[in-house]
């Protein structure tokens, strides 16, 4: 155990954290507004990855292909999310939460198979954009530029969304809708489209994350389920509905995962669920959420 090793574990944890944050932020956003945990969020992530791959393989490889793919994935998934919300999901709003949860789970099943049918079960991958190839040396270890890019983009997006929520009138409406939908309706705001918009934004974040992960991880069926459980853990630790909570929850989770493997090599699986359980037992509103009882 030396500095170089610790540092590379730390950077690894941070990279994982930022990916997770990109995904979990959308989840947290939707929970904050709609009070629904969207199981299908992981599916949006997976579809974003597949769509990015599709774009990269359909276009002539140029320097900009990767970025086009990323944006295309985000937009594509957002549109899909919008369609799902407009045509189906919004009819469940008044109903019991269980029905909404189950609907998102049904989406996981349907979208998962749709992806399998379209792209098969082979592992796919996308190469790094040329501009971010290579890495730099520090503390006797190499940090890939791409990882650094991810580590920087996480907080950037976090800040942007946070500014949007707290400084713009749109953001104010979103927060108002989270507190009292009927009142907002009565005030003339078009709450329906607001919800659709938020759903699409959340899906876009997931899709973007999926696109950006492709150079680091292969695209496989099952990545939707794998990521959603981790996103749940992060959101619970940080605090359901708390935006910055999700951020710091991701950071914490990334490090726990990174270093947990050293302490309990076989039990990293166990440790993250144990962490989730402990938080729910002693502080269910998470590290940064508002106390509820």
């Amino acid at each position: 155990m030396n500095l170089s090793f610790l540092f590379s574990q730390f950077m690894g944890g941070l990279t994982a954290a930022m990916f997770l944050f990109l995904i979990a932020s959308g989840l947290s956003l939707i929970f904050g507004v709609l009070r629904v945990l969207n199981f299908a969020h992981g599916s949006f992530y997976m579809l974003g990855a597949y769509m990015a791959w599709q774009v990269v393989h359909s276009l002539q490889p140029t320097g900009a292909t990767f970025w086009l793919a990323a944006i295309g994935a985000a937009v594509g998934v957002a549109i899909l999310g919008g369609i799902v919300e407009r045509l189906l999901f919004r009819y469940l709003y008044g109903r019991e939460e269980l029905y909404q949860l189950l609907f998102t789970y049904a989406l996981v099943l349907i979208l998962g198979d749709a992806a399998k049918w379209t792209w098969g079960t082979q592992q796919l991958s996308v190469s790094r954009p040329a501009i971010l190839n290579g890495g730099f040396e520090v503390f006797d270890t190499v940090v890939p530029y791409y990882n650094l890019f991810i580590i920087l983009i996480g907080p950037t997006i976090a800040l942007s969304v946070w500014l949007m929520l707290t400084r713009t009138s749109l953001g104010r409406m979103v927060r108002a809708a989270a507190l009292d939908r009927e009142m907002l309706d009565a005030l003339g705001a078009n709450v329906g489209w607001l919800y659709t918009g938020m759903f699409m934004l959340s899906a876009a974040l997931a899709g973007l994350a999926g696109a950006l992960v492709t150079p680091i991880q292969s695209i496989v069926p099952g990545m939707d389920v794998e990521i959603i459980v981790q996103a749940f853990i992060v959101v619970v630790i940080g605090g359901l509905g708390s935006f910055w909570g999700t951020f710091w929850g991701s950071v914490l989770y990334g490090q726990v995962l990174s270093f947990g493997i050293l302490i309990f090599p076989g039990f990293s699986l166990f440790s993250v669920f144990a962490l989730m359980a402990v938080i729910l037992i002693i502080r269910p509103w998470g590290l940064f959420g508002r106390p509820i009882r």
Partner: protein
Amino acid sequence: MSALRTRFAGRIPWTLIVFLAALPVPWVGSRYDTFLATQIAIYALFALSLNLLLGLTGLVSFGHVAYFGIGAYVCGILMKTLGVPFIVAFPASGLGAGLFALVFGFFCVRLTKIYFAMLTLAFSQIVWAVCFKWNDVTGGDQGLPDVPFPDLHWMASLPGFGHFRIGEQFYFLTLVLVMLCVAALRRLSQSPFGRVLTTIRENPERAAFIGVNVRGYELAAFTAAGIFAGFSGALFGIFNRGVFADYVFWAKSADVMIMAILGGMNHFWGPAIGAAVLTILNQQITSITEYWPFFLGSILVILLFVFPGGILGALDAGWNRLVNRRHA
């Protein structure tokens, strides 16, 4: 008359009727039919145990499979690794699952709604992680293959049973045990205890103010549900010729929940019907295509939007409409 009437009371001895109807399967059906019927019986018990929480008390648990799995592992370990006879291993499974349900449930019932659901999920995944990794005891990711059948040779000496092999013999054992459990669950649902649980489902705040210790009752229901899930798990471990960690994965909790809702969670027998329908559909569809999840998801969507009361709920509504039209 309203279609929403919760159907947990009744005078007809349905349990006995269902038992008698299910009994002849090995005589009239093929070996495959018996195999399917055994599976249905086990899942029916599992789904009915979940409905104690979901339909009766209004508790949405995402981690019910943990107790199914614990029951399976306890029975499997006792019977395979330690050579304990079934007659001891079976009750032990229920007890073991119930114990974990008691401990986990104690923490879970202090929370409500989504937090409750998340904690049940967290505990369930902890169980999964332990089963997946504890190679010495649970076999780790290899699991416990070749769990032995209980000794059922004595059954061959019963009149009419002589030609049956272990598969059919096990079906009879399963049917009897499942029906006993179902009878107990039915009794529980129709008892004053069950009535109190429905008040918690309808309005926990009001229930507290007619003198109900809500947390205490929820814990009791959680434990009872865990015990019966454990029984179904024990039977499944033997039926499946092995206990493996992926039985405890959370997706199975979703499957059993879908069974309960498909059949109708507002009716006692709903989950059993849902288990039967879903098991048969699964067998039929997976033999034609690999896209079973797509079908399952679509069925679920149709359920949620068109038939939220499930099969029995739809039948109930249809019956009421028929009756009202006759009286109109």
